[in-house]
């Protein structure tokens, strides 16, 4: 069965910390995505990547960066965590040219204190 795995289900960090969220997929997909999900706002795209070392900004990239050194792994980095980054973070992947995520991880619920 296909799998997108996020390294943590729950994470608690402090304001100002550098935070890493890791995502691994085992389907050899070219495209990977990071979304954040907030009540009443749906899913918003932070960054996506369509190939190794390639990245593109989504709708809300401010305060975040990403890294894709290997095809199967896509990392989201909060350079200096702030309380307004408390959220559910979802990683996804897909095959092919379109930017429609096919498979999602179970999410990381991140709390910034």
């Amino acid at each position, binding site marked *: 069965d296909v799998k*997108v795995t996020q390294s943590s289900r729950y994470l608690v960090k402090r304001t100002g910390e550098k935070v890493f969220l890791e995502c691994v997929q085992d389907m050899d997909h070219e495209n990977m995505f990071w979304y954040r999900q907030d009540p*009443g*706002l*749906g*899913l*918003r*795209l932070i960054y*996506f990547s*369509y190939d190794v070392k390639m990245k593109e900004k*989504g*709708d809300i990239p401010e305060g975040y960066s990403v890294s894709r050194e290997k095809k199967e792994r896509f990392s989201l980095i909060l350079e200096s965590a702030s309380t307004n980054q408390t959220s559910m973070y*979802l990683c*996804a992947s897909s095959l092919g*040219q*379109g*930017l*429609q*995520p*096919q*498979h*999602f*991880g*179970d*999410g990381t619920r991140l709390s910034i204190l």
Partner: protein
Amino acid sequence: AQSVTQPDIHITVSEGASLELRCNYSYGATPYLFWYVQSPGQGLQLLLKYFSGDTLVQGIKGFEAEFKRSQSSFNLRKPSVHWSDAAEYFCAVGAPVGFQKLVFGTGTRLLVSP
């Protein structure tokens, strides 16, 4: 730019009853349309998608959706709801040209009563 509206935040349906979840989109041409489901504590799962052709699309878990161009709608339906269908449902729209990213609706939470 495309946008999508799910007018119902919550819907409660009795088990065994039929279901229709509403989705309206805004886009200048016919977009790509999607429905995803998110069970509690899990990520999203793709239920079905519409790219072109037959306007009635069949998906997984017994769901279907109908694209109506005149109404700019892509409503999700199921003839008989099961308790395991309780979840949050997201409609999404994407432009059919180029390398365009999806825009998601705000979701509809489905509650199933016994």
